[in-house]
């Protein structure tokens, strides 16, 4: 028995719908606190979920019946908390939000008693590598970064995004419904990001935005052809660039080249010159040099921030700073840039001799200075590993422990991220008209002890299972 079901687990490529049978047993909300009206209704919910999943083959996940969550504590993010609230999800959107008794409940809606529950918008991870890796140590499962050059803006994450990755249902179970997927950070410009919905049958259903931002990195960790190790002393090939000077000069020249390219391209267009050859690398950078889309700059040291921001300002880039881990001395300057910041990882190490909480307090210190902050699921010290992305809310909670106001922490993993990447009209708060990406949990979303009971994406109750819950259930028998 175990082996027959076990073989099923081994296939990563299977879709949730194939496991609908198992889903019917476990996808309904669990726990006594999150009370659904009756057992038949649970089964109906499960059947609905399966039915909706089955319809994936021809359509987007579509909510077919209005859902009303009553009696829960609503953390709206945009307009405070509502202790005894009602939230109506219809046609994949939030149709109504308000205090109990003040919200009209549509007829024919499925009413779910959420008393004792906390309800909040789906969490958004501002930096992940979902769909670019499966088993970290297994190189054949990794499409994290193209390793051939420092400047590769024409690498598009959407070309590699593996929507069936198991990492997504694992993170989703803890209430993460959306994410920015970025290439790994070894290169100065490793490529362009996508913005995803964490549910859907295939890539096209899950990618909400392509080339939404340019990934850029600067500092001691960026790849340098001229040095096998850090600092140019690694005995590598004597090739340019091998220092920070080289990296910045290379980048500045690349931007100048784009400006030159645009001039020639426009001139050719004016003359109706059909022989002009498109250069994909140049084309990729144009929207960013026009300031039309954000450039996410990963940088750790204060002095590196100052260098790269000078360059960004020279070319009028629309900047989102990322990491800024060791910038305690220049926080006022960072605030003066008036750019949003993805802080951390909050778990990055301070320098030896620095107080233990020098990085823990960074989100609070930046927010205090009026900086719009986001918090990502990045692990300590390095490239993100989205295997741990389910811990995103705990990073935000840890920032609260070290002084960040609670509301700011919640914003840092919802609305602020949506605003930074241009999705605030659809995501990030419990507001009428936004996508019904909603999480129901048995307590404070930022606390490690809290259990997420149900995730809705576009109003569809997502089966609360993944490969790990199936293993759990199999071996708990």
């Amino acid at each position, binding site marked *: 028995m175990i082996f027959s079901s076990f073989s099923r687990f081994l296939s990563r490529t299977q879709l949730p719908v194939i496991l609908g049978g198992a889903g019917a047993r476990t996808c309904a909300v669990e726990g006594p606190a999150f009370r659904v009206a009756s057992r038949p209704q649970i089964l109906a919910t499960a059947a609905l979920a399966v039915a909706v999943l089955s319809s994936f083959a021809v359509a987007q996940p579509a909510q077919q019946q209005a859902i009303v969550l009553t009696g829960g504590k609503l953390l709206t993010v945009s307009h405070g908390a509502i202790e005894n609230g009602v939230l109506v999800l219809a046609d994949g959107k939030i149709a109504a939000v308000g205090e109990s008794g003040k919200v009209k409940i549509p007829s024919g809606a499925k009413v779910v008693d959420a008393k004792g529950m906390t309800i909040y918008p789906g969490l958004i991870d501002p930096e992940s590598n979902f769909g670019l890796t499966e088993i970290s140590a297994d190189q054949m499962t990794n499409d994290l970064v193209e390793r051939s050059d420092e400047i590769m803006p024409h690498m598009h994450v959407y070309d590699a995004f593996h929507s069936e990755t198991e990492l997504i249902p694992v993170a989703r179970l803890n209430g993460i419904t959306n994410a920015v997927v970025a290439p790994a950070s070894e290169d100065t410009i490793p490529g362009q990001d996508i913005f995803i919905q964490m549910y859907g049958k295939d890539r096209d259903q899950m990618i909400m935005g392509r080339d939404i931002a340019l990934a850029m990195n600067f500092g001691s960790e960026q790849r340098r052809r001229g040095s096998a190790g850090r600092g140019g002393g690694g005995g590598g090939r004597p090739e340019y660039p091998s220092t920070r000077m080289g990296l910045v000069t290379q980048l500045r020249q690349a931007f100048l080249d784009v400006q030159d390219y645009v001039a020639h391209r426009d001139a050719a267009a004016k003359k109706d010159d059909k022989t002009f050859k498109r250069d994909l690398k140049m084309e990729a950078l144009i929207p960013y040099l026009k300031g039309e889309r954000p450039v996410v700059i990963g940088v750790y040291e204060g002095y590196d921030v100052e260098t790269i921001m000078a360059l960004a300002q020279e070319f009028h880039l629309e900047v989102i700073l990322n990491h800024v881990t060791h910038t305690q001395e220049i926080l006022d300057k960072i605030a003066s840039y008036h750019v949003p910041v993805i802080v951390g990882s909050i778990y990055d190490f301070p320098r030896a001799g620095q107080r233990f909480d020098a990085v823990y307090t960074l989100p609070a210190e930046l927010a205090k200075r009026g900086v719009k902050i986001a918090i990502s699921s990045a692990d300590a010290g390095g490239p993100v590993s989205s295997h741990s992305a*389910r811990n995103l809310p705990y990073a935000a909670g840890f920032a609260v422990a*070290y002084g960040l106001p609670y509301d700011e922490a919640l914003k840092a993993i919802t609305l602020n991220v949506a605003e930074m990447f241009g999705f605030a009209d659809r995501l990030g708060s419990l507001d009428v008209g936004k996508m019904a990406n909603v999480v129901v949990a048995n307590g404070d979303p930022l606390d490690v002890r809290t259990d997420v009971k149900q995730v809705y994406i576009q109003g569809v109750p997502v089966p609360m299972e993944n490969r790990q819950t199936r*293993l759990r259930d199999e071996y708990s028998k």
Partner: protein
Amino acid sequence: MHFFDPLPPARRTTKYLIAAGILSIAASTAAQQAPSVPADLVIRNGTVMTASHGTIEHGSVWVHAGKIAGVGASVNAPASATVVDATGMWLTPGIIDPHSHSALDGDVNEATSPVTPSMRMIDAFDNRSADLYRALAGGVTTELLLHGSANMIGGQAVVIKNKFGLDRDAMLFPNAPGSIKFASGENPKRVYGGRDQLPSTRMGNFEVMRAAFEDAKHYIAEWDAYNAKAAKGDKDAVAPKRDLKLEALADVLRGKLYVQIHCYRADEFMTEEAIAKEYGYKVRAFHHALEMYKVAGKIAADQTAIATFADWWGYKDEARDAIPWNAVISMRKGVKVALKSDSDDHVRRLNQEAGKMVHYGGATEDEAIRMVTLNPAWIIGVDDRTGSIDVDKDADLVLWNHDPLSTYARAQKVYIDGDLFFDASLPGLGTTHFSGVMHDSGGFGADDEIGEEDGQ
């Protein structure tokens, strides 16, 4: 120096104990701003999570001469006792990490042979490492510093009390039992297979172990034969050469070293137990043990504990089936479960990792706190001395501003043997015994850090 140490392993701890006793006096007089340790200390009116006998609301703990002298709703401390008001705060035993590679400056793996049992981690222990300081600020009072997982049979661990600021020998846990690190699976395969050496497979893994124990049995037999001759007064008997490697392996077979095994897969637990039975030693704990939930009922009978991650998975193939319910499922099936860091990062917040167990599987708060206190103490073999708030145990205590199992808890004061080593309210570092320069050690303190030449 230690390589030529003539003392047999079993006597080493005694030597350290003596050294620690002398040097700690010197250190405490030399250290800057070292506050005088009160003879009696009472931490009163806190939520006392004892880890052994539940939680006492509005409880008090009396510390006398570095030991816990009383715990309960009230204690009979003398009026002269220094009083710390813990109203609105939580008190737990010191957090214990049963799997750390901190403070070794990257000297984690002697990855030059798959069998290196005579390596001793104390020889690499850097007592001024910033990792220790950051762990202390996270409430960690005891750590087991282990050899890495490159080798089937690695080196011997060192147990420390995190008395950051004192000298090296004053940080050693007095009289702690010795432990030795074993490993199987992907890491030894990768390291030696990558060089076209044995072992490059799990078949090779375990054959290397068996061969090592055959050598050890032979070594013991030679010594037994010699001792028998000597006992009969045979003046011509020549003692076999003392061999540090075989001596250490013999100590495993003699039951003098706790065996701590890095492995992941269910089949490996069973193989390891079978080999242990074949050669007559016990496995103290499986470390990582991410698939224990599959065979916990079986392993529980062997009384082997696990030191596992709360929720890590997917970083390598043998971590593919990791589930965050592993700890609680294994516990419910009778296995003693500890959570560990294997990380200079996570060691700073093991209390939160314990909190996750409330979420993943519904551990009670009592069960959860035990996973980072009393149970890791058992794995290290110091549970009679620390790991819970009980009378006569070492006063290793952490005062938290919030429920330690929540995301929001910060360690406010950390006591070790009744002495205050960290106080978050102090300006600067918050340390009470540290002065001078702290060392940065690169990397993240994980098992897999085996030097660039062995990287993937």
